[in-house]
Structures are given as C-alpha cells and as structure tokens.
C-alpha cells in the first residue's frame, strides 16, 4: 500500500511487531522519528495508542520508559525523588565520623541517593529510549508545564546537584483521551495523530493476526458486529482490546459462527457498562440482523 521505501520499512517494522497500521499512522510515526518531535496521539480508549509507543521501542530496539499520568502527579513522581531511607541509613552509619556537616550533606544529596523517575530516567538513559507519557490529560496543568520545560530544554535542574542535561534525547509519545483540553503550548510542540476505531478491514486483519486459530467466518462476523455496536449510543464504546478478548474467548470455545445465544451470553466481554448491556440485549436481534448473522425471515 505504501511505496515509499522509508515508509514501507516502518510499516514492516510495525507489522513484524504485530501492529497493523494505516497510512496516516505510519507517516506520523516516521515523521516523529525523523523530525525528532514528540508525537501526540489522541483517540478513543482501546484503539491502540499506547501500543504505538511499545512498537516504536521494539522497532528502534531501545527501551520504553513509561509514565502513567493521574491527577495530582507531581515532580517527585515524574522527575526524581531522594531515597530517604538510604540517606538516613547512611547518616546512621556515619555517626561516629568526624566529617563536617557540609561534607555529610554533600554525600547524601549525591547521585547515589537519587531515585530517578521516568522523565529523569529518559534523559539520562544510555541510548535514546522511547518515552511514553500515557494519558496526559489525566494529569493537571502543573505537570503539563514542567513536562513542557523538560521537552524544550532537555534538562532537569535539581537544586542539590545542579542541572542534569540529557545524554540522549528520547523519542516521545504522548497519549490522551481528550478528557481535558491540552494546552496550546504542548500541542504546538508535537506532531498530532488521531486514531479512530478501526474500520472493518483493519479490525479483521488485527483479529486474524492476534487470534490465528480463529474461524474465518466467526472473525468476520465478530468484526461486523463490532462495527454495528459502535454505531449505537453507548456509555463505553468497546475498543480493539474488547474485540480481541471476545474473539479469543469465542475461538477457544471452538465456535465457528455467531448466533443470538452466543452473543447474549458473552456480551459482558465487550460491554463493560450494565446499561450498555441492557440496551444492547433489547435490540440484539436488530443488531444481529444488521450484522447479517440472522436474517429477517428467521
């Protein structure tokens, strides 16, 4: 599908890691790596945003450093923290010595006592790693701003030690679910990629790759059903992960097709909200009709 040699190389790299892509994803990943810009990926939950970072790390043969964001995430969890237990122990052991206060202080606030958190880890890594900032929209603006600072200077200043400069600049992937609007400053610094739910063909390819022993007809029906279900108004729209769970469980039960009873009894695998389940149950025959699993005549 993609003729450009560089791009098809990336596509192959992604494919060998089991990631089925579409063109826009390949291009964004490629540009992010070439231009050395962070890649901001947004999209609904469960479409494989995080996967991209993992695959990138594997493809580049480097480490993945991940920072999961949450509300209240602060510098001590994102940048660094002192290892207090170790500092205390050291002071205890050092009790009898005649060393001066300043000297003692210098020792325990040295690098040996520093706990590196993901951002510091990423910039001091021996080889450019992939740094994944997962669900950045869950953190608050304070985090966003010091993250921006790191992104622009590639250095972190620690009052006790001084400024730590990056040995290697990491590849950065930032993901978000759009629960909060991200700052314009952050967006400006990144390349942007939107990943939507996969279309039927892509999803089918994914299912067949990840669940190789699945019956072809079943896989097709599952993917068609997922496409239909996603059209419904749901609280929690199922993502690819749900499709795969479902496909795996149905395949391991050796089904080769869907029917009303099977769907009804396994709906909990793809829908995680009881209202969604109820809603889907009541309109199930209609949905299955749309999927082509049961015909009107039956």
């Amino acid at each position: 599908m993609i003729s450009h040699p560089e791009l098809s190389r990336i596509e192959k790299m992604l494919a060998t890691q089991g990631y089925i892509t579409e063109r826009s994803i390949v291009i964004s990943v490629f540009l992010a790596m070439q231009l050395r810009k962070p890649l901001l990926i947004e999209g609904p939950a469960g479409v494989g945003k995080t996967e991209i970072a993992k695959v990138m790390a594997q493809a580049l043969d480097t480490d993945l450093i991940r920072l999961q964001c949450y509300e209240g995430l602060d510098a001590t969890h994102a940048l660094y923290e002192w290892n207090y237990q170790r500092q205390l122990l050291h002071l205890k052991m050092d009790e009898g010595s005649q060393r001066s206060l300043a000297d003692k202080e210098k020792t325990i606030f040295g690098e040996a006592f520093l706990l590196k958190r993901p951002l510091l880890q990423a910039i001091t890594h021996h080889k450019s790693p992939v740094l994944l900032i997962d669900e950045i929209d869950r953190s608050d603006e304070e985090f966003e701003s010091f993250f921006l600072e790191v992104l622009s200077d590639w250095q972190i200043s620690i009052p006790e030690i001084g400024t730590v400069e990056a040995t290697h600049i990491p590849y950065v992937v930032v993901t978000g679910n759009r629960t909060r609007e991200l700052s314009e400053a952050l967006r400006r610094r990144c390349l942007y990629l939107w990943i939507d739910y996969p279309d039927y063909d892509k999803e089918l390819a994914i299912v067949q790759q990840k669940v190789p022993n699945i019956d072809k007809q079943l896989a097709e029906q599952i993917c068609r059903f997922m496409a239909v279900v996603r059209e419904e108004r749901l609280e929690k729209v199922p993502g690819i992960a749900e499709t795969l769970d479902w496909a795996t469980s149905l395949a391991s039960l050796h089904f080769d097709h869907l029917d009303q009873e099977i769907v009804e009894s396994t709906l909990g695998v793809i829908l995680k909200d009881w209202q969604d389940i109820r809603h889907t149950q009541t309109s199930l025959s209609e949905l299955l009709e749309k999927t082509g699993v049961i015909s009107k005549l039956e």
Partner: protein
Amino acid sequence: MAVQSQNLITRKTSLSANIVQFCRFLREKGLPNGPAEEADALRAMAILPPEDPELLRDCLRAILTRSRRNQVKFDELYDEYWRNLDRAVDSKVKDGKEEKPQAKPKQKAPSIQALKSWLHGNKEEEEQTLATYSATGSLIHKDFSAFGTEELSEVMKLIQQFARMLATQYQRRYRAAKKGQKLDLRRTLRLNLRRGGEILELAFRKRRVRKMKMVVLCDVSKSMDLYSRFLMQFLYAFQNVYRRIETFVFGTRLQRITESLREREFSGALEKLSDQVNDWSGGTRIGFCLKYFVDTFGERLVDQNTIVLILSDGWDTGELAFLEEAMIYLHKKAHKVVWLNPLAGNPNFEPSVKGMATALPYIDLFASAHNLDSLRKAIKAMSR
C-alpha cells in the same frame, strides 16, 4: 487577475513555495500554525519527497494540525486549496461574513410574575407546547414543563438535594486534601541533619488545594420559560450550598444576579430578581450576552479552576460570530464548559439550532436538563 494567475504558474513550479503559501492559507482560514510548522513541513518534504498527492496530504496533516477538530478542518481546506489553487490564493478569505447583529424586537413580558404566581400555586396556561417528550408516571422522568403545582414542593426538595450533591462533590476533594498533610521528607532530613540524622523535627507539606469555582449563565428568554423556573430554583439552592459561584441570567442582555440569590428565602430572592431583571421572557441574544460576559467578566472570573455552566436552549437569531468567539474563549480558559439544554431531552433532538450547532464544538459536557433524572445525570457527569 492576469498578473495573479501568472504568479501562480511560477509558484506552482516549486513545491516548497506552494507549501509556504498553503500554510499561509491555513492561517488565514483560522487554522493556527507558525514559522516552526512551516519549517517542519519543508524539512519533511526533504526527507520524504512526496511521490503521490495522498502522501503529501498525510504528511502535511501530521505536521500542520494539532487537534482532531483541526484535522477535519484541514481536510476540507486542503481539498479547497489544491483543487482550486488560483481561486484559493486569490480570494483573501471571503467566506460569508456573518450578518450584522440585528436588534431584537423588545418584548417586555413580566414573566417573573408568571414564575412567582406559578410557584405560589397558580397553574394557568401551563399546557402550552411542551418542548420535550415527557414520560408519564414518576416525577423523576417527568418533563419540567409538565409539572403541576401539587408536585412542586416535592420537586424542590429533590432539586435541593441535587444541588447539595454537586456542591459536596466539588468540595470533597478539598476536604480530603486538607486532612492529607504529607510528610516532607526532603525538608525533614535537612532540618535534622545537624543532629546527625536523628529525626526530631518533622516538616510537613500540604497538598495543593484545588477549589473549583463555578460561573453559571442561565437563559431566561421566552423560549426557556417553561424551564427557567426550575433552573432558578436549582441555581438558588445551589448557590446556597456552594459559595464559590457567580450567577448571571441573560435574555437580550446579561445581568449578574449573584447577590440577589443570596437571600435567605427563595421568595425573597425572587422578589429581588423581579426588581432587578427586566428581561424575563424576552428575546434571546446568546451570542451578544456571552460575548459581553467574556469581555466584562471573563478575565476576572474564568480560569483553569472554573467550571462554566450554561443553561440555554441555544435559540439565537443572529450574532453567531459573537457566540463562537465567546465559546472559543471559554473553552480555552475554563476548566470545563458545561451546557445544559432542556430541549436535548427530546429523543428527536438534534443540535441543529444554529446557535447550538455553533457552540457545540467548544462544549466539554453537553447534557439535557428537562427533568429531574436528566438533571441528576448531568450533575453526576459534571463531577467526573
């Protein structure tokens, strides 16, 4: 004209010049990008010579957009630009300027009177066109516009409950944080270093407290008549349990009613309101009013810790440019923009009302508020 098109022919020969031109075109159309993006785009072209138009498009999209909304816009503009190159460059962005804001016919109806008499048990012309579908049966699913007086006190009680629910949800975080003082080990260690590491003194650090403020903008124009009485009750109840709130009403103009709602009795508050607000049940100029709010109070009242709550059906006859401008500002500055629309409860509702459609992209949470159930759901969603 001839000169123009000649220019274009020479430009066309160079892809990079065209890209610079295209970036400019995007800027003019309101899609922000700067020299940095231009440079990136050119660099990308160097790394990845576009062999087919699809590739070029995907490449430029990745570099020049920063949000989903912009990507959609980008796709439209991209087609427009390349398919129709000369006209696109030529026309200096002339996409239909909005009509002049029209002065709305002022229709002064003393409907606060209607509101009061209704509250005090006068049912009168209640059965008018119901804006929304209402299920018979339990109160909780009954449309606000369909309530009889006998059910009123019950409803008010519930509304007060909801208001309290919302208020505590926003305050809980604050209280928990207040208790949760954390030991500041870094400072503790420092403090005790001179004692040879014997910990005698503890240093604490308080978690930074984030208090949510709320700004409420409530539509009291004619089209909202059937609902505003409930919403007023809600606002009153809410303001009584939640202090960090500023309340405004608007019809043809905006008025701040925060003080008036601070009355001990609802009837007292209504009394004050009727003196103050002379705009009940008139026309609507949402765009104008929101713009006025943004210009006058925006700077002071709206920040990252503010939730902006708009209660309106989105009926507006003009000034869509104002509305959009105001919504963009609020969306950018506020923590969250919540729009409760009583009409949204209708199963056939489509936000096709012009004003609503304009505002929709800038709303974080859009929900209905036509009955108690929907109000409760909206409140639940808001505190998420």
